[in-house]
């Protein structure tokens, strides 16, 4: 049997933490190679302009590279099979036009970054400034200067989803709720920005690219395609990566340019993104507009949902999936965890002169959750019912599982209404309601809000094929190799950048083989040492890579048993592998002894058994449409109606992610996600002015939640193991970030109920709260709390 302190279900301390706590992690900027030149990019100060000419100082040849100097580079091309979509080519260094502030134009090389910036300042670009497309809803059908010439409009894609009979629902409704919601644009803001270090290895005839990326293998595929290089001539290494959250799961122009420079130069080059570059050019996120009409009966049962979603996607679509998935995910997830039967949704993805939008923890769902969960609360308010009850009334019930929603999501299992009840319990809702009636001594207004969601995780091929994706990340891989001394190396195609996968994957191998986790190494992030895999995103790695580790471990276990039975002179059916030994009826042999024979003493092998203990396996879950974690979040806020400030007094998460391999890591993931969701709810925003200038270029303007702003986050677990995965695991990495904007907005709404004010836009800033209160008071001046 596996040791309970180490195996599945154990809160084993994270092995990766020791090096980080001692400052011994190795991130791209920590890697020192002799002769390295630093790169600074000349970037567009304009949102939209034609380039008339680029003037490079005459003595700067081979130190300044424009698109013309790097003809090998092909424009980034996103493929999609989805109908009616447009996919513009994106030259990694701008050629004829710049399309957002920060668009790269030239790479400048110098011994230090400061000197590279000096050089960049000497490059002048002659621009013909064009009108910027900034307001997606206004400009989607066309504008004076469309983002992409020849389109006529500014639409990447537009799709109408329809299921059931929305008109019948409208006719049968007792009440109709209409609202507009807005989730503003923000940054992914990992602790470490992007970074690339590239050099040519003449001995191996390859280009080595170190990159702070979540997806080293697909980055290699992209570099091969856009540089016209055999993949055997490209090695990509993601060393320690200081957070990704989605933006680092995409290809960036800088990665292509650095790899192209490595082919041109006889020294390494490095680019380390600074915070301003990150805020201006790394994938932005959210930026959704919603118009929702909900039809409900007098009980609060939602009969139909009619929606319009507009996603402001910026100038280009990031490789590999393009700009389409935000709107598509939002449209499919808008009906939430509810058994709504009639649904119509028009989802538009709009090109604007802003930085490209990319994935960020939750992808599309935080906006959808915000829209549906705010609407649920408004239905409840309109009927004078408790939002908790209306949630439960509409939710898919356990006995309806598996259940395919009107948005096309196939929920596998779970007790969704129980998460609402557990969350209300964690917050002690009756006590809060009493406190609320009594009022606060400091005059602030208390409110409580909930938000529920089901999170599609670890989706396989079926899901990505249905999306029309050109790349289908449906599996993961693991090579498990027992070395001659019996220690184990797991080589996996994912990338761990804070998720603790070096620990959790070792726990799975321990579960299968009984090897002490300290004798297990997990290698990831290097295309040289690992079989192909897609990387870490979409809440997939624990389920997919964990499944691959389980399978490869079992292949090894079978072989260990085969050799062990031979050594123990018994039938293979009479032995079992546990606690680091193969146990037979009359004795046992250790894995180390078997490993020695498999490598150093092949004369001890049974006839017909090959040497080596080395197995590669792939894994795709039994359901390609994903396994669904779910949760209800609850927030308690105090709102200062005079200043508009919102303080979080309490926060609770009741969730079910199936079998937890390492509950401590699960809870860390939940807390981290919730904090990012709080950032979306209250602080983070990158506004653009009418000329397309971004107004948050430093952390003085871009506010992130800090420890002082956070309550202790309570977590309650439900346990419904998945049917279609190894051990019943479900993914859960993103969920924490999905519900906080909705839960907090509902709590603010609850606090301001007596005034009649609601804030339907994130972040919920003091300015927006004060404006909402003012608007409500102008509407009904007699109400004064």
């Amino acid at each position: 049997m596996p040791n309970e302190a180490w195996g599945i279900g154990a809160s084993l301390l994270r092995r990766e933490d020791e090096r980080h706590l001692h400052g011994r992690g190795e991130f791209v900027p920590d890697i020192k190679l002799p002769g390295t030149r630093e790169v600074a990019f000349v970037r567009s100060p304009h949102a939209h302009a034609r380039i008339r000419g680029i003037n490079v100082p005459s003595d700067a040849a081979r130190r300044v590279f424009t698109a013309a100097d790097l003809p090998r580079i092909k424009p980034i091309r996103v493929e999609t099979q989805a109908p009616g979509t447009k996919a513009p080519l994106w030259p990694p260094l701008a050629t004829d036009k710049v399309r957002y502030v920060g668009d790269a134009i030239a790479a400048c090389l110098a011994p230090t970054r400061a000197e590279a910036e000096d050089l960049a300042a000497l490059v002048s670009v002659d621009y013909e400034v064009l009108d910027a497309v900034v307001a997606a809803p206004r400009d989607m059908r066309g504008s004076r200067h469309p983002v992409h010439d020849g389109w006529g409009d500014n639409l990447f894609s537009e799709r109408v989803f329809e299921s059931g009979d929305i008109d019948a629902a409208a006719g049968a409704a007792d009440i109709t709720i209409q609202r507009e919601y807005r989730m503003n644009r923000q940054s992914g803001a990992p602790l470490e920005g992007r970074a690339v270090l590239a050099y040519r290895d003449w001995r191996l005839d390859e280009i080595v690219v170190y990159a702070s990326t979540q997806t080293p293998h697909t980055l290699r595929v992209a570099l091969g395609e856009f540089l016209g290089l055999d993949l055997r001539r490209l090695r990509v290494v993601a060393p320690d990566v200081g957070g990704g959250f989605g933006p680092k799961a995409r290809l960036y122009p800088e990665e292509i340019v650095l790899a192209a420079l490595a082919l041109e130069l006889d020294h390494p080059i490095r680019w380390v993104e600074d915070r301003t570059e990150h805020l201006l050019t790394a994938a932005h996120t959210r930026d959704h507009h919603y118009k929702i009409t909900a039809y409900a009966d007098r009980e609060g049962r939602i009969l139909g949902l009619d929606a319009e979603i507009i996603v402001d996607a910026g100038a280009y679509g990031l490789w590999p999936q393009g700009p389409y998935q935000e709107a598509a995910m939002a449209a499919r997830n808008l009906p939430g965890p509810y058994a709504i039967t009639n649904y119509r949704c028009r989802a538009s993805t709009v090109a604007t002169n802003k930085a490209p939008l990319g994935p960020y923890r939750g992808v599309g769902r935080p906006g959808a959750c915000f829209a549906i969960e705010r609407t649920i609360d408004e239905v409840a308010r309109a009927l004078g019912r408790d939002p908790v009850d209306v949630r439960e009334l509409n939710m898919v019930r356990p006995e309806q599982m598996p259940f395919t929603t009107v948005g096309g999501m196939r929920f596998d299992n779970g007790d969704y209404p129980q998460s609402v009840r557990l969350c209300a319990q964690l917050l002690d809702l009756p006590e809060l309601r009493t406190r609320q009636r009594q009022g606060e001594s400091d005059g602030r207004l208390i409110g409580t809000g909930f938000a529920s969601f089901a999170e599609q995780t670890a989706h396989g091929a079926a899901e990505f094929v249905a999306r029309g994706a050109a790349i289908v990340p449906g599996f993961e891989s693991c090579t498990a190799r027992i070395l001659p001394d019996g220690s184990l190396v797991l080589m996996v195609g994912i990338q761990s950048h804070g998720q603790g996968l070096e620990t959790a994957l070792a726990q799975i191998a321990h579960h299968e083989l009984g090897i002490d986790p300290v004798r297990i190494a997990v290698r990831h992030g290097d295309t040289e040492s690992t079989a192909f895999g897609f990387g870490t995103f979409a809440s997939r790695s624990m389920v997919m890579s964990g499944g691959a580790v389980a399978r490869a471990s079992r292949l090894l276990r079978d072989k260990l048993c085969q050799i062990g039975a031979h050594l123990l002179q018994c039938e293979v059916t009479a032995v079992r592998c546990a606690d680091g030994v193969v146990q037979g009826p009359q004795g046992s042999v250790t894995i180390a002894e078997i490993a020695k024979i498999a490598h150093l003493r092949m004369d001890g092998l049974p006839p017909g058994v090959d040497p080596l203990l080395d197995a590669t396996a792939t894994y795709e879950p039994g359901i390609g449409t994903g396994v669904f974690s779910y949760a209800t979040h609850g927030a308690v806020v105090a709102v200062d109606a005079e200043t508009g400030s919102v303080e979080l007094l309490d926060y609770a998460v009741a969730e079910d992610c199936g079998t937890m391999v390492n509950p401590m890591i699960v809870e860390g993931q939940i807390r981290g996600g919730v904090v990012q969701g709080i950032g979306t709810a209250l602080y983070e925003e990158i506004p653009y002015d009418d000329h397309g200038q971004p107004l948050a270029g430093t952390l003085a303007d871009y506010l992130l939640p800090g420890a002082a702003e956070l309550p202790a986050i309570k977590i309650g677990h439900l346990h419904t193991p998945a049917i279609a995965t190894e051990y019943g695991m479900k993914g859960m990495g993103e969920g924490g970030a999905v519900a906080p904007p909705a839960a907090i907005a509902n709590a603010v709404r609850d606090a301001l109920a007596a005034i009649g004010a609601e804030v339907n836009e994130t972040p919920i800033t003091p300015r927006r709260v004060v404006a909402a209160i003012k608007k409500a008071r102008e509407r009904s001046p007699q109400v004064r709390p």
Partner: protein
Amino acid sequence: MKAPAFDYVRPQSLGEAMALLAKSSGEARLLAGGQSLLALMNLRIAAPALLIDIARLPELAAAVDGVDRVILGAGITHAMIEDTRVPDPSRGLMPRAAASLAYRAIRNRGTIGGSLALADPAAEWPAVFAALDGEITVASPRGRRSLNCAGFSTGIYETQLAEDEILENVRIPKLSPGARWGYVKLARKSGEFANALAVAVADPARRFCRIVLGAANGPPIVLAAASQVLAEGRSDPDRLRGAVAADLDRAADRHFDDFQRHLNIVAAARALQQVTA
């Protein structure tokens, strides 16, 4: 971003620093805590050819506890005031303000002289020292002069400092035992610059009452009408709000939008409430 190249010198005395500054013909900047200047240089907003590091000058580290006032050297850090490692003339107002200023790491290095000389409109010290009726001593090879804290800043990032002058110290009158103060900083989160900042001081024994508004799209504003309400010892909130509104009407050049105007009134009213409560 990284700063463009610059020279760096660390003089041993105030006299030497003044000589270097006078010689630099406007190309030099004084470096104290560096918590704003270095960031501005990294953003390439500031590009001085020479940094004169005055952070360790003994003359600027002096703290003198006088009979009726305290003199604090310009090089004293926010953290020293927060931790009351220097005499506090303000009966707790200054430590409270220091604790609300940015983050501890910044407070460990940032100095009061740096804050006053930079004159960021959202900074705390210009408003606090104006409310306490402090005076600033500036020194140059031409001699010394004394300037009122209220009025020292003349605009956004602008002060009365001449090119060759160094801010040497701040002289702050001691509040009487019966004095009271109010300090209200409204910011989106802890450590951020203020969206509204009001400092009220009432010291009847010295016949001194003043409400000052910081974060005012320019230098701190001494609210004359509101200060008068405070001097009358009245705590009628509507009357005070009216007085603040009248003061703000006289500051039309600050172009407060509706929200800022509203927050300013709330901050001033709450600061007064703290004084009279």
